[in-house]
């Protein structure tokens, strides 16, 4: 096995593209090292991307925020501007693991690890976040929901690296929220989760809405119909009922030790309602 620490994204992409055996990208390592220890992956090449310029920075741009692929989630929680603009994304990122894991884990890693239960991903999908993908043939910017294709699988080609996650600048009257169900209070994996992102008009009616569910299908789900049902409403009881029904119906969960299909369907609807209520309040709705 070889460990390398390239200083440029081009070098990193080049090394990954020409790697003969299994290769792995190392940012926080909170998934990679566990998988290596468990014998699930035996990389011949590890590309540590933390010394590549810009990858460890959160930058506020004219368009919004750019979160480098190597930024630990703890740093997101300490960024006041980001927290104010996207509280749902930050609270989701800060739910991953312990303080120790927070010091290492990244939202890009959370996305590319492609777990259906990844905490930050439903919040990012609801937020309409984009992933900047760099490969040997150049750069492309894609919707985060198009990165995971199944548990542990992504649409990224050999040699491609997600170098940053982009979040839009927030308009007036905007809010997002993320909730997950776990049987304890901390340090657990989502049984079901929901992310909601809303913008309101000047009268408090919902103008745009995106709803995403986690741990309820092979990938995080963007439930477009759930977003549509919210538009135009002020989150009245009847709308919330329809939201829950749509979300429960959109789920394609599995039965496992953490929850049954029936339970996950029911709770997906409940969490979507509650997350919508929090996002609505954060957006200034009453």
């Amino acid at each position: 096995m070889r460990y390398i620490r390239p200083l440029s994204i081009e070098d990193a992409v080049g090394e990954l593209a020409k790697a003969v055996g299994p290769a792995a990208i190392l940012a926080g390592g909170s998934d990679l090292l566990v998988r290596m220890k468990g014998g699930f992956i035996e990389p011949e090449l590890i590309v540590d991307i933390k010394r590549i310029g810009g990858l460890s920075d959160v930058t506020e741009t004219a368009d919004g925020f750019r979160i480098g692929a190597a930024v630990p989630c703890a740093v997101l929680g300490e960024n006041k501007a980001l927290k104010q603009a996207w509280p749902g994304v930050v609270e989701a990122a800060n739910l991953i693991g312990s303080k120790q894991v927070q010091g290492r884990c990244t939202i890009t890693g959370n996305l590319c690890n492609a777990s259906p239960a990844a905490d930050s991903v439903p919040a990012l999908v609801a937020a309409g976040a984009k992933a900047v993908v760099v490969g040997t043939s150049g750069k492309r910017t894609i919707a985060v929901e198009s990165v995971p294709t199944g548990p542990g699988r992504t649409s990224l080609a050999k040699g491609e690296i997600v170098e940053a996650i982009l979040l839009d600048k927030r308009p007036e009257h905007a809010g997002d929220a993320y909730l997950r169900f776990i049987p304890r209070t901390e340090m657990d994996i989502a049984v079901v989760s929901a992310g909601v992102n809303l913008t309101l008009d000047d009268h408090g009616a919902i103008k745009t809405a995106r709803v995403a569910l986690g741990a309820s299908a092979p990938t995080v789900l963007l439930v477009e119909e759930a977003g549509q049902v919210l538009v135009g409403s002020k989150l009245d009881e009847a709308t919330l009922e329809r939201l829950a029904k749509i979300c429960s119906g959109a789920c394609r969960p599995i039965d496992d030790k953490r929850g049954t299909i029936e339970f996950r369907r029911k709770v997906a609807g409940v969490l979507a309602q509650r997350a919508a209520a929090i996002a609505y309040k954060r957006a200034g709705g009453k």
Partner: protein
Amino acid sequence: MAGVAVSTTINGDAVEYLCQPDETLLEVLRDRLGLTGAKEGCGTGDCGACSVIVDGRLVCSCLVLGAEAEGRKVETIEGMAHGDQLHPLQQKFLEHAALQCGICTPGFLIAAKDLLAKNPSPTEEEIRFGLAGNLCRCTGYDKIVRAVQDAAEVMKGA
């Protein structure tokens, strides 16, 4: 496998070592450098017994490669006391009997030190959430929480 040459700083001292590319920082600390304060509990980042601070960030050393420490500043439990002078957290852990078998204790002390550095007056709830990444199978946590509260008071007065 070719070894990786690493120059780093541990508890303020410049340290150089050779390690294998897949060797964890925890393995380097314990097996190559003789710093056996950090313990391997789970080896998968769940128990916090191997907690160290790297460039001001609390991390599990079992989830860091030894090679990654190049140019970083690593703080371990061995650097917590100044000679015979215990850190207030160490003193209060003793006074409150906040340990039994002791395996989790170095991790708790490092995590508590990081917690108080960022939040000098944590509430009980903040302490419990802040230390949720450290598992103790002996004490039931209450004595640990009280020791941290007491140490926080002492450190504020210092």
